[in-house]
């Protein structure tokens, strides 16, 4: 662990977008002026009470916030340890936490006068949220999605198209999230004059990691208030899954300076950490990709490796830079769950609580199933149920059916 711990874990990034050595602005010159404009537009918006007031109206009446903090009684009994609460982000309009960030960014884009929105998507949750808000505000929407993901997340592709978005299947590289982000960046560099890039996670060049975190932090702020109301105190531990890490950062950030709160992030271990996986902290090292320095999966020559996860939303060889920093400072403990563990957790939550989780969120449930039994009954554990599993029903159904044969 780092010997020189900061006074606060919540003060980053610095003015150049760094969290320790991580973060930064590693982009082509064409994009740099726009990124500086965005930084300024976001700072102005943040300081404008009218911006927050307008956001609050949409968060309440359009997204449906606050999302409930639900005591999972049967899951708690089943695991026989900590008292488990689910933060129900899957109940948001569009079915995941992604909408919190998209709403914020679309409002910033409108302030900047941008009429064309582009986004990358893995599982399609961010793409659906972006398509939804573009429909609501009458903006053109183009979503880049790896061709492999287009295949395994068909329901979300259909949803995006129904909402009026154009979905571009990306054929380069491994044809998953990383490649979708490359092509979105190529579009942005080409159409920089009228286009706003709505990044779906706490990654990319500064100010994105900070801005997305700020918009997602509503998850943690609500959790604090709701736990206070339910139990009269702070939770003892938090768990969330991590691809880029936006749902996790949203839940964690308001609690980073509460030392009594243990925090766990769960990466996707795919087939296992010695085989194909998507756990950048467990299996990667610091490098530079997609505008920021962070932990990446790569070979000895610095070439980026292809990630693997059953969950399209976690299938990315990097992680947000603030997570990389929280990992190195030791404030957050990062674990990983395999495809198999996530599948088992997917079924467990469906059967015990009547809630079908997204495969992404099932990774958090999987580690919860290990951690909760080791904790006393008065230990309050919150897991971020970041998305609902409707989109995964065909894929999981096929896998389970194939196994019955």
């Amino acid at each position, binding site marked *: 662990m780092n010997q020189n711990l900061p006074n606060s874990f919540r003060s980053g990034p610095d003015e*150049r977008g760094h969290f320790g050595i991580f973060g*930064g*602005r*590693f*982009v*082509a*010159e*064409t*994009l*740099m*002026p*726009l990124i500086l404009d965005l930084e300024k537009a976001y700072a102005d918006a943040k300081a404008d009470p009218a911006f927050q007031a307008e956001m609050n109206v949409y968060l309440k009446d359009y997204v449906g916030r606050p999302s409930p903090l639900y005591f999972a009684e049967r899951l708690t009994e089943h695991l026989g340890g900590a008292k488990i609460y689910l933060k129900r982000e899957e109940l948001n309009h569009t079915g995941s936490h992604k909408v919190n960030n998209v709403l914020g960014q679309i409002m910033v884009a409108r302030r900047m006068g941008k009429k064309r929105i582009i986004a990358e998507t893995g599982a399609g949750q961010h793409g659906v949220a972006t398509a939804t808000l573009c429909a609501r505000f009458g903006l053109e929407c183009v979503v880049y999605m790896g061709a492999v993901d287009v295949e395994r997340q068909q329901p979300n592709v259909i949803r995006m198209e129904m909402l009026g978005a154009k979905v571009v299947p990306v054929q*380069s*590289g491994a044809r998953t999230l*990383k490649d979708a982000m*490359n092509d979105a*960046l*190529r579009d942005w*560099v*080409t*159409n*920089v*004059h009228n286009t706003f890039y709505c990044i779906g996670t706490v990654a990319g060049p500064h100010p994105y990691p900070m801005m997305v975190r700020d918009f997602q932090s509503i998850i943690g702020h609500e959790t604090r208030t709701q736990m206070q109301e339910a139990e009269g105190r702070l939770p003892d531990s938090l768990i969330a899954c991590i691809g880029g890490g936006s749902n996790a950062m949203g839940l964690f950030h308001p609690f980073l300076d509460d030392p009594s709160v243990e925090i766990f992030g769960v990466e996707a271990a795919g087939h296992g950490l010695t085989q194909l996986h998507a756990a950048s902290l467990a299996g990667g090292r610091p*490098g*530079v*990709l*997609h*505008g920021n320095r962070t932990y*990446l999966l*790569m070979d*000895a*020559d*610095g*070439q*980026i490796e292809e990630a693997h996860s059953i969950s399209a939303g976690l299938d990315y060889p990097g992680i947000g830079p603030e997570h990389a920093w929280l990992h190195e400072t030791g404030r957050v403990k990062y674990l990983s769950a395999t495809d198999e563990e996530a599948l088992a957790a997917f079924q467990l939550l469906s059967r015990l609580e009547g809630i079908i989780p997204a495969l992404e969120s099932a990774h958090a449930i999987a580690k919860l199933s290990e951690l909760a039994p080791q904790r006393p009954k008065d230990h309050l554990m919150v897991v971020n149920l970041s998305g609902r599993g409707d989109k995964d029903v065909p894929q999981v159904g096929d896998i389970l059916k194939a196994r019955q044969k």
Partner: protein
Amino acid sequence: MTTRIDARFAELKQQGRSAFVTFVMAGDPDAKTSLDILKALPKAGADVIEIGMPFTDPMADGPSIQAAGLRALKGGMTLRKTLAMVRDFRKEDNATPIVLMGYYNPIYIYGVDSFLADAKTAGVDGLIIVDLPPEEDTELCIPAMKAGLNFIRLATPTTDDKRLPAVLANTSGFVYYVSITGITGAAAADSTAVAEAVARIKRHTKLPVCVGFGIRTPETARAIAESANGAVVGTAIVDAVRANLDAEGRATPKTVSAVADLVSALAQGVRGAKQAAE
């Protein structure tokens, strides 16, 4: 300190003509063919050579250069081998400037200090790193200057007068003006708009200004070379490599000669330009 780049532009200025800058991908489709192409370039009329360092995720490149990089990586190319290629080239040619162009991660992983030392020893003169804007100068630009390498910055249509001084501050060798907002190999550059942009940049710097992105034909190269100190061609050359591979993507007996023929034609275009404006 004078580099081969400074010397070459001084020489061209005396001759009263603009530079023809060629881009090839290191290791495309294999290390040997790539070295043969490299050696053929000066004879075919290249004044400055940019060598692409292959990277899996070239976010500013179009399909042609993406594919060239992937062919090179598939053929086992690494940054170490790219430097070895420059060393081999230098055994026969100690005058043609070599600029390595690519993305930061492979250099960061190699280690900035050892990379700069090895590049200098190999005979590299300058670096163009697409994802290192002036905001990140402490990463590689400043150390490169200290190591005696030129750090050549990209200026773009979005780099306005307010920002230009920051972009030019630590630039040396030449300025690379990206003629379009977009990726390599995209739309053709409009020579009138380019001439205006070059004039604008020249109000801020005494460095030579070379123009790239969107130049594919001898005619465009000539038009660009009339206002700029150099015209850069990349995608068209990389496409000529690809068009002369066999069905399995391997080099054929005509790969090197076909590339050399194209480069000769383009070089004639550049040499046909009226003297570049000062």
